[in-house]
């Protein structure tokens, strides 16, 4: 195939991706080369050090806040970056460790062993209370267990581990910790006197029990009394615990008076002499109250704290507070307003149909764009420039905005994100392809791109491919966060998503591999005519597994097109690519055209359940022939093409069809960034030449009869005069009883029927023929029942 023809083929491949609208879809859960969570550790390190790369709307808010800081010259660094890259503030998990000195519950359980008569704990110590709707709420924290453990050691040392009073103390403390999980626990032997130290401790234990049992006001009063008791060893910690009890009460029964009382108690702790117990907790606890009682004042305080050049110690908590407050505020603070505008997610009722969702999404995009432009004009802040470009479709941005974006120096941390959108808009706007290609090549020549960003720019470059080899060069994407082993990659993706990856799309077996076709490349390949696909299939720069994908889908197309020359050529490739079936490929190649050859071809089809005419619907055959995966389909070869046949919707490629409505118009689908980057449309303007090849692909598509159907719908009727593959196989087997391949062919036809791919009960018919004519064959023994 000559170079000119190849370039024409590629141009055609993209010509169907036309139209301008809002990039849609819910973003990728399973695709594997664009990670909105920042990618692997080296890329995350670069991010934390100051390189935000492409700012993606579907990154989590805290990671977008990292970008906000960097774009404003504020530092992030490894510790703050790591804290902002994982979900924050979901409460403590209880860790029982034997690798280090015991702490928390472990410390308490270990300390109890000092007392020989300590009652055996039948189970561990649950520290959560049951909440509403099957939730659990953390109630007791490790510090309480640490304190109890050290107190028990001290009391045992002072009074003897076998002392009856120590035993009483222990049983009371057990009761306190039972109340972490159980309601209504009482302190055993309360009020029965005993040594002074035991009575002082009893007062403290009663207060703690009241706190854990939800009687916060009673707990506060008890701690206050302890604070006034000059003899109590707990006098020093009591003021803080009183404040904590009042804070719990304010949260449980909110009122201005309750908040004021709790905040005043916390202020008193803060104002106490340095070193007073609990002072380090005062800020966090006060903020948790102010979050509810004084949101405006707390917002101002958080903005000041987060506005400093260096990240504050608890940056993730502070940002989470700011973000949550912002959600409730009538006017959002600048950083969270920026994030909300960048994301511009439409809020629609759950039962909205696709059209209503699309309208709401477009309205949100346009509103976000107008706001971003207005904010940029107000302050010339580059973050708003990024947002404006991210939300814009071609032709929508004022010249001044575009000029500012183009004038941004390459040294700016905003440059990569702006350049990505400028190239996107240029391509969509029909800019000179040579110029656009030079621009993308210049970006790809940079050495500071993250793997994720390189994959995105590679997708843009693919749109500008000059010929098939150029296409092959930019069709591949590098896998990120593969295999789910985040310990090796450093990826944080699994902290946010419990998703999984599909298999059979990389260059390795199963889930293994490091590169694969980009979804945009797969869509383009599926829109090529057979000869273009076949030429690509022998491109030595592609990994063997991907050439197998091409060869098998090309085989399916060649069968549908009754193209024996193509079939023979593909059998030559499949001899090495799918050597498990080498006998079949040789048989097909050596058999002259006609019914005998068709039988050989159809037998091969019957053995590979995953064959389809398009990559998006196909499943790679892996392992031995019986291990090949996917359901068979009812192969039907029309006599006349269907002029209305359409290629698969692009939404099927984005995120492998997960989370994207398959009704989404092609123009709303983003195959460059898989819906992660921004709402601005990435659809390419179709090239205006060589429609002859587009016509050829369309003409071929007309013969790709698709019998796959939804479970709840009947199969589509076969067009008149079609060649029904399984019927012809049955006819052939009936007419050639001595052909040694026939029993096996019948076996596979039964198998096809098991998996819903039969035609007019072809599986049942095959079963009857196999068992009536070849009852003692190995194939009959293998197929003892049928399900058709």
């Amino acid at each position, binding site marked *: 195939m000559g170079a000119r023809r190849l370039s024409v083929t590629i141009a055609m491949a993209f010509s169907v991706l036309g139209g301008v609208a809002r990039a849609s879809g819910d973003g990728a859960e399973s695709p594997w080369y664009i990670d909105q969570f920042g990618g692997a550790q080296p890329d995350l390190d670069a991010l934390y050090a100051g390189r935000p790369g492409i700012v993606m709307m579907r990154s989590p808010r805290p990671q977008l806040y990292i970008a906000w800081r960097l774009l404003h010259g504020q530092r992030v660094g490894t510790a703050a970056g790591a804290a902002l890259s994982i979900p924050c503030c*979901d*409460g403590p*998990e*209880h*860790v*029982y*460790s*034997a*690798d280090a000195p015991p702490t928390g519950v472990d410390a308490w359980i270990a300390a109890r062993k000092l007392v020989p008569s300590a009652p055996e704990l*039948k*189970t*561990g*110590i*649950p520290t*959560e209370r*049951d909440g*509403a*709707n*099957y*939730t*659990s*709420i953390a109630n007791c924290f490790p510090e309480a267990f640490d304190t109890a453990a050290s107190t028990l050691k001290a009391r045992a040392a002072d009074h003897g581990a076998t002392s009856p009073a120590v035993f009483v103390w222990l049983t009371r403390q057990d009761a306190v910790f039972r109340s972490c*999980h159980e309601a209504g626990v009482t302190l055993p032997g309360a009020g029965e006197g005993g040594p002074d130290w035991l009575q002082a401790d009893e007062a403290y234990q009663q207060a703690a029990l009241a706190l854990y049992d939800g009687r916060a006001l009673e707990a506060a009063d008890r701690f206050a009394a302890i604070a006034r008791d000059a003899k109590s060893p707990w006098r020093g910690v009591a003021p803080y615990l009183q404040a904590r009890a009042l804070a719990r009460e304010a949260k449980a029964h909110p009122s201005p008076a309750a908040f004021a009382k709790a905040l005043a108690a916390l202020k008193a702790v803060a104002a106490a002499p340095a070193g007073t117990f609990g002072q380090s907790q005062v800020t966090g606890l006060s903020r948790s109250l102010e979050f509810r009682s004084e949101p405006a004042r707390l917002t101002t305080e958080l903005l000041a704290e987060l506005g400093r050049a260096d990240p504050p110690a608890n940056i993730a908590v502070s940002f989470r507070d700011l973000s949550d407050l912002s959600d409730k505020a009538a006017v959002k603070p600048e950083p969270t307003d920026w994030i909300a505008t960048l994301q511009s997610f439409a809020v629609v009722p759950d039962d909205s149909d696709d059209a209503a969702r699309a309208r709401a999404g477009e309205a949100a995009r346009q509103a976000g764009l107008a706001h971003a432009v207005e904010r940029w004009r107000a302050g010339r802040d580059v973050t708003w420039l990024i947002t404006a470009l991210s939300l814009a479709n071609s032709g929508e941005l004022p010249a001044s905005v575009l000029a500012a974006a183009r004038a941004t120096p390459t040294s700016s941390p905003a440059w990569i994100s702006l350049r990505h959108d400028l190239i996107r808009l240029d391509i969509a706007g029909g800019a000179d392809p040579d110029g656009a290609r030079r621009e993308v090549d210049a970006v790809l020549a940079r050495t500071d791109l993250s793997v994720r960003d390189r994959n995105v720019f590679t997708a843009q470059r693919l749109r500008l491919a000059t010929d098939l080899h150029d296409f092959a060069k930019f069709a591949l994407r590098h896998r990120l966060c593969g295999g789910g*082993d985040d*310990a090796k990659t450093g990826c944080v993706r699994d902290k946010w998503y419990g*998703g*999984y990856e599909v298999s059979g799309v990389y260059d390795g077996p*199963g889930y293994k591999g490091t590169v694969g076709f980009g979804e945009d490349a797969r869509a383009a390949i599926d829109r090529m005519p057979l000869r273009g696909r076949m030429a690509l299939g022998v491109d030595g720069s592609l990994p063997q597994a991907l050439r197998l994908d091409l060869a098998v889908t090309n085989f399916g197309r060649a069968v549908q097109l009754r193209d024996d020359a193509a079939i023979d050529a593909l059998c030559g490739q499949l001899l090495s690519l799918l050597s498990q079936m080498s006998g079949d490929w040789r048989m097909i190649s050596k058999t002259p055209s006609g019914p005998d050859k068709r039988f050989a071809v159809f037998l091969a089809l019957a053995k590979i359940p995953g064959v389809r005419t398009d990559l998006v619907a196909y499943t790679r055959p*892996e*392992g031995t022939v*019986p*291990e*090949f*995966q996917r*359901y068979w389909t009812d192969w039907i070869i029309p006599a006349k093409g269907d002029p209305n046949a359409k290629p698969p919707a692009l939404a099927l490629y984005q995120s492998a069809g*997960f*989370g994207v409505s398959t009704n989404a118009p092609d123009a709303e689908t983003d195959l460059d960034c898989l819906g992660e980057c921004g709402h601005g449309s990435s659809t390419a303007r179709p090239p205006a030449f060589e429609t002859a090849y587009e016509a050829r692909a369309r003409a071929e598509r007309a013969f790709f009869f698709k019998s796959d159907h939804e*479970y*709840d719908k009947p199969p589509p009727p076969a067009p008149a005069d079609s060649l029904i593959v399984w019927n012809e196989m049955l006819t052939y087997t009936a007419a050639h009883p001595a052909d040694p391949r026939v029993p096996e062919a019948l076996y596979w036809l039964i*198998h096809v029927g*098991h*998996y*819903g791919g039969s035609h007019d009960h072809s599986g049942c018919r095959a079963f009857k023929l196999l068992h009536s004519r070849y009852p003692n064959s190995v194939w009959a023994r293998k*197929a*003892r*029942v*049928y*399900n058709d």
Partner: protein
Amino acid sequence: MWAWERPEDLRFLPADTEVAVQTGFVSLSGSDVTARGRRFTLLADRARVTMVVVHVQIDPRRPPVWTPDVRARLADAVVAHLGAETPKTVQIDLEVRASQRQMLLDLLTDVRARLPSPTRLSMTALASWCETETWLSDAPVDEIAPMLFRMGATGARMRAKLAAGGDFTNPRCRTALAVSSDAPIVRAPAGRRVYLFDPQGWTPAVFETVRERVTGWAQGG
């Protein structure tokens, strides 16, 4: 119907459907046992919620240290996260490697010992365990639910066997099975408890689709 940990509203479920709610997450990493309860709400008719599930996972990066102490802590952590009410059935969801099978058996034994006697104990199992693993017969459980999804290389064989009217080799695996909404099974033995999993979160439409498929098995489909 499995209610995995994400906000789920299953109030649409019909009366003949039960809910297995995941209430606990327990992780074993070396000798560290980490546990927590459910953080997201499940809205469902309480009468429908008859089972709690505790998901246990073993950190692949740090081989487990299986001492008596760790073993006891793991079982304690599981039992501590069964939720507010004693359920009729507790299910343990733990996938183990070949070298860790004894740990799973130990855990099931220990949890069984900690549960009140009327409480049934169920376990999930990889479908392949029900074909080739004799150790499964020692599991002290009332029910084994083989999972007919994410089956890997053995999946085709298993599906073919079931589609052909076959059944799990181990008879203990013949009282329940589990399917996922995104991995349809053409045919499976009817008349047993079917656990339904959805990787995205349940909606009425997805539920109805899966329900129709499963009902089809009973009708000989």
